[in-house]
């Protein structure tokens, strides 16, 4: 049997972990096979759960979140017969598949969308935990917005510097209100559970928001402009499908291989005009073809379009 292990936000965070959960459920529905799962609650459990699954003969073990990196690096060599997949982090071991995403590309697209929808010429970004990964989102977003409107004002706030920042809707809401007060009328939440507060506050304040990871358009219909999709679900689904034959190595998922994208559905149909969609799709094509290169913050820890 395979197993999926979620990180602290829990599998119902409506965002990152939930995407992984959806991927696993899809695999389960298709194959009719059960999988083991575990939600981490304290750090001592990380080693314990990896060991326990490996000892029980679970294969492969799929885990989501960069926080697993360190422990996996230590455990993987001890269980050479078990295959591991880790999402959002690179772990260099012969039995580990590392899946990372080009979040900056997807963020670029929703950044364009934000700039196109903004009437005030100000767009906001609410990040979760202040780590390079989240700055990567923000930087892509800012680049996309500037690509549409070079004079656009970009406001960015991070929720915190710890994993609690993934789950602080009150602060998410207050930051959104503050950004609105500074003129923002579209706010992109790349903040896990904190995003719930962002989306809620945007709705309450009558401005637009952008969801993240999963398709969050349905959460506040008519107020969520779109969602930056990070297909963690696909990554988990693929890993489970490969099963014991999981191919080790680094797997980068970007626009080109549908690893990231933006969401359109009935909930935001009224908000996105065909022209907007056309502009964004055109940019997407250029990125895929390599004509446009979006700067990756994590490549050099700098951002040409914004300061953090």
């Amino acid at each position, binding site marked *: 049997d395979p197993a999926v292990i979620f990180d602290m*936000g*829990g*599998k*119902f*965070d409506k965002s990152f972990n939930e995407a992984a959960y959806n991927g696993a459920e899809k695999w389960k529905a298709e194959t009719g096979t059960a999988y083991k799962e575990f*939600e981490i609650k304290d750090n001592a459990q990380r080693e314990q759960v990896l060991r326990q699954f490996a000892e029980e003969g679970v294969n492969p073990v799929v885990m989501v979140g960069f926080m697993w990196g360190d422990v996996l690096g230590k455990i993987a060599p001890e269980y050479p017969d078990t295959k591991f997949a880790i999402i959002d982090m690179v772990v260099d071991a012969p039995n580990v598949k590392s899946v990372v995403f080009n979040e900056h590309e997807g963020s670029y697209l929703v950044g364009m969308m934000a700039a196109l929808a903004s009437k005030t010429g100000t767009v906001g970004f609410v990040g979760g935990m*202040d780590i390079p990964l989240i700055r990567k989102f923000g930087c892509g977003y800012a680049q996309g917005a500037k690509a549409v409107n070079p004079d656009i004002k970009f406001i960015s*706030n*991070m929720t*915190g*510097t710890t994993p609690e920042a993934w*789950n602080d*809707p*009150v*602060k998410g*809401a*207050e*930051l959104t*209100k*503050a950004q609105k*007060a*500074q003129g923002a009328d579209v706010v992109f939440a790349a903040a896990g*559970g904190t995003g*719930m*507060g962002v989306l*809620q506050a945007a709705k*309450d304040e009558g401005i637009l928001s952008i969801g993240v990871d999963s398709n969050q358009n349905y*959460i*506040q219909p008519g107020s969520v402009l779109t969602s930056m999709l990070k297909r963690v679900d696909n990554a988990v689904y693929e890993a489970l499908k490969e099963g014991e034959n999981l191919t080790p190595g680094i797997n980068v998922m970007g626009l080109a291989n549908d690893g990231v994208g933006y969401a359109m559905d009935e909930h935001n149909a009224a908000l996105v005009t065909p022209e907007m969609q056309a502009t964004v799709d055109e940019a997407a094509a250029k990125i895929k073809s390599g004509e446009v290169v979006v700067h990756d913050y994590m490549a050099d820890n700098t951002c040409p379009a914004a300061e953090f």
Partner: protein
Amino acid sequence: MDYATLLQVLDSSIRLATPLLLACLAGLYSERAGVFDIGLEGKMLIAAMTSASVAAIYGSVWLGLVAGVLASMAFALIHGVASITFRGNQLISGVALNFVAAGITVLIAQHLFGQGGRTPSLEGAARFLPIDLPLAGAFASVPVVGTLYAEVISGHSLLVYAAALLVPLTAFVLYRTRYGLRLRAVGENPASVDTAGVSVRNLRYSAVLITGVLCGLAGVYLACALQAGFGRDMTAGRGYIALAALIFAKWRPWHALWACLLFGFFQALALRPDVVETVTFMKVPVPFLDALPYMLTVIVLAGLVGKAIPPRAGGEPYVKER
């Protein structure tokens, strides 16, 4: 910092001060009656979860409010039984109930909704929405005062105004009514109340239950007004800060209002590192801002309050016969 930003921060301060104020007044009743209650936090939490759950299921925030208050009162009653009837240690009882609340809220919410201990987002009638005070629109164009009224005073949910009204109400009850006189007496010298032929037990239970009601309102406000739903540990230490505010206020209602507004203001600032940065001209680490309300609490307790003498019989069970 420009005026608009200030208004925004003040607006946010009021929102964040409200749960503190409700909890602080809650603590005031209990502690004035001589029952210390460190379990404000837990009561808020259970009320938040219950109200959000009921509101989510039945789509009515009013049902949620009733349920939340009842849940909080149930916890208050346990505290009462432990500390009044069985003369247990009031601090320990409070700490214990905080633990129970922290765990049980997640268990129940997970059981009901299967969303990792969260409730679904509340919408429409399941939530207290901001209400505009009369003439807010008309005043909005008046500079300074008008905008202050429109932006900061107006546009909060009903519970914010209820909390504000509770301040004069509490002051009135405490200082102008028979009940208030007895309540203050029982916290100072329960034997005086007892020999005057009034039941110490009943008075204390009533106070503890009022504490339950007010903590319930605080929890309901958090889950159904400030936010749209319950999330684990969403009270985030507000119960303790409310206690500190109570000490700061030296157990007096009006002072409690000012203390809570101050703490609310610091919480609002912690959410706005950008503002702090522009005001102080330096980059203040976010963890420092996060810790600011707590540090302020310590500073207040250590230095600013002067000697805060709690109700004299506070924390001690009333024992007639050993």
